[in-house]
């Protein structure tokens, strides 16, 4: 055998050995795949990890920016209302007729929940023109946005800190009915039950009236007036429910 033939034979032998190795490797890989049962979550995570991380950072960044922008916008709105409302309140306070007062209260009510506190304050002032206009304004706020308004209305009738007159309670009970504040039902029933226990006893009336900003002038007539207002409000709420 010549030298060339020997060398060709050696190359053939190595080539066969390489094919054999390749065949063994494929067999091993096939077995390994069977053992593993396909690609794992870890593989996926390793593959998609950098992209997912980037997306999370993107969304969190957007959310933070959005919240900050919203908060800033809200502050701007509050500031704008704070600048616009005093002029409107002054005009309301100086109204020289019921029609003008009503018109100003309606304009104030367009500020939604922001108008509730100044309108409540006008109820507390006493008299007839401003409280009647304020009542109209509160009715509109409750009609427009009962979700925001009803909890505030309920806070007034549940108040025990002597902040409001009984007349303010009465008006708010009426507005609660007109605003269809279904969640206030239990509050109204509890209020009515407390009133029903009073009777005409002066001492009991005086003790009960300590929840109002003025306890003078709270008598059996007041109790009857509040009770009938509660009955009307409950009737409306019940009617809406059915």
């Amino acid at each position, binding site marked *: 055998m010549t030298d060339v033939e020997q060398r060709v034979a050696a190359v053939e032998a190595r080539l066969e050995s390489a094919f054999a190795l390749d065949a063994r490797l494929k067999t091993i890989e096939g077995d390994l795949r069977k053992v593993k049962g396909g690609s794992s979550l870890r593989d996926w995570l390793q593959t998609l990890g950098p992209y997912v991380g980037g997306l999370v950072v993107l969304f969190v960044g957007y959310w933070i920016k959005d919240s900050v922008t919203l908060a800033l916008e809200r502050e701007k709105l509050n500031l704008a209302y704070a600048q616009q409302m005093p002029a409107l309140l002054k005009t309301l*306070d100086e*109204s*020289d*007729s*019921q*029609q*003008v*007062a*009503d*018109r100003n209260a*309606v304009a104030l009510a367009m500020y939604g929940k922001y108008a509730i506190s100044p309108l409540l304050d006008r109820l*507390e*002032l*006493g*008299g*007839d*023109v*401003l*409280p*009647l206009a304020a009542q*109209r304004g509160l009715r*509109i706020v409750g*009609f*427009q946005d009962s979700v925001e308004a009803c909890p505030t209305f309920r806070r007034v009738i549940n108040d025990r800190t002597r902040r409001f*007159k009984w*007349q303010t309670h*009465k008006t708010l009970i009426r507005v609660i009915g007109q605003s269809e504040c279904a969640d206030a039902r239990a509050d109204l029933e509890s209020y009515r039950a407390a009133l029903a226990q009073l*009777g*005409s*006893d002066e001492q009991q009336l005086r003790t009960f009236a300590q929840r109002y900003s*003025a306890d*003078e*002038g709270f*008598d*059996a*007539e*007041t109790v*009857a*007036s509040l009770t009938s207002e509660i009955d009307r409000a409950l009737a409306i709420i019940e009617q809406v429910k059915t």
Partner: protein
Amino acid sequence: MTRPRLRRLQLTACLVLTLAAAGAAHADLRNCDNLSDNPGDYKVVLDDFSFASPAAQANTQLAALRETLQFNFTGQLDVLRASARQLDRNLQVPMRLVFCAGRQPSLDGSDFTAARAEQLSDERVVVEMWGKLDLSAAAGGAPSPSARIGYVIPPVQHYVDEADAPPVHVMAYPKTGAVGSIAELENLPELPAFALIGLGTKAAKANRYDLAVWAFTRAEAGIADAKLGGANPRLEALLAYVKRTACETRTTARKDPNYKGPLTLVPAQACAGVEL
């Protein structure tokens, strides 16, 4: 129609009606903040008088009329308090005068709606008075004061049907047949009578039977005096209401187990037709 759409339509209609009403009429009716002072007292509200002419406004007697009325009516209230105390030492008449500067309701009383009557009654207003003063000259004579004075009794307007008891009364002074005089305007005998009717109505609702019956009884005499100026069917109706309600209050007092006062000693009386 969907519910939110219906709500929007209702709101729009409400706003349109409000704005339309606002443009339709203009009355010089200012809020009276003083009403919330002394919340336990019953109140007699005296509004600002308006003047029919510059001459009337310049008249010193007419210009000072409000102050004179205040003085006179304060005196009348003192007499009422003393009279009540004479009858029963425990009978208090917690009634005071309140002035509402700049408040000039329309002369016909059309500002006094049901809602306003309720609001004023809740503020314990028993009567409100307003008016327009003028100087009218008789043929060849010197100008003498004349006036149209309006009274509203908010508790009566709130609780009683208008046909049973008219709550608004607009009266001309001097009355027909009477001699025109500033003295009549300075005393206004109807004012205490109307105040007592309002007081009696509220006291009856508050189960203060003694005060209610006393007020109705005093008011009856006052209305009878006012009727002397001439026939007035509205005053007749009011007088009938006073008599009937006084009788009903006595009956209720007798039936109230919590009441132990002097009205239990009064014999029972049928109230139907008592006003006749």
